[in-house]
């Protein structure tokens, strides 16, 4: 799984701490997701989708074989 979180965060001028506060998670969690070391829960994915106004599959990009 690849994520565009860092790119979207830069686009909207948000730092990790601000995004963490808006998502109501820790900055460590945002950092882990950005580094692709943690696949977020559906709830966090939905929150991120709303914050960036992007569909989930445009924030988290899966390879075709991962979805089969």
């Amino acid at each position: 799984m690849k994520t565009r979180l860092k790119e979207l965060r830069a686009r909207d001028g948000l730092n990790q701490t601000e995004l963490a506060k808006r998502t109501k998670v820790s900055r460590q969690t945002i950092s882990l997701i950005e580094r692709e070391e943690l696949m977020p829960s559906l709830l966090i994915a939905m929150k991120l989708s709303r914050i960036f106004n992007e569909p989930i599959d445009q924030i988290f990009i899966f390879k075709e074989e991962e979805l089969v």
Partner: protein
Amino acid sequence: MKSFAKFFIGAVFGFFMIYAFLALEFEVTMFDIAYELIWILGAISLILLVLSLVGMLQIKRKASSPLEGEEEDDRDKWQYKKFNDVSLVGNISIIFSIITLSIVIVTKQELFLIICALILVLISGASSFVSPYLLKVMYPERDLPEASDKDYTKKLLASSDEGERHVMLEGLYYTFNSTNILLVGAMIILTVYSVSSEQSQLFAIFIIGLILLTINTQYILQIRNK
């Protein structure tokens, strides 16, 4: 096949090492060096305690400064690492102070040393109660439990998010495995020492065995009942 060869070489090496130790007939007595050891371990514990308190003050000072952008992220990264460093140093200080007190009591030192060692244990132990306060200073927006709360550790775990749990799980999993290996290793060392020094360490071996039984049963029951 490769791991079998490694295991076989390790077993042969271990056998000869234990055989050599058994033939040595050595004995380590704490009584001769107890007084010096007490001062060295006590001093290390005190230094670590001071370092931990200084670290706590640094975190408190840095947490109050208003920052934005990348600087805010950098501060959070620094605070997170510093908090973990402070916790580690504080825990080592507690362990060293307990060892110091144990040596003082076992080697029947003078009352002054008993009181000093006891105070060191109490102060280093009390310093660990500052951690919940520090967490609140670092993360004022989060709903974290108070140190005085009943089931503090349970509530703290409940208040952590999935990223924090992921990190904790990795850390605890490796720690659990290494604890098992280290305690079994300690039992082997104590058995070899008992035979070579002719000083029975069976009580310590029994206690370690009991700890191994407790932690393994606790772990299995925790995951089995979910």
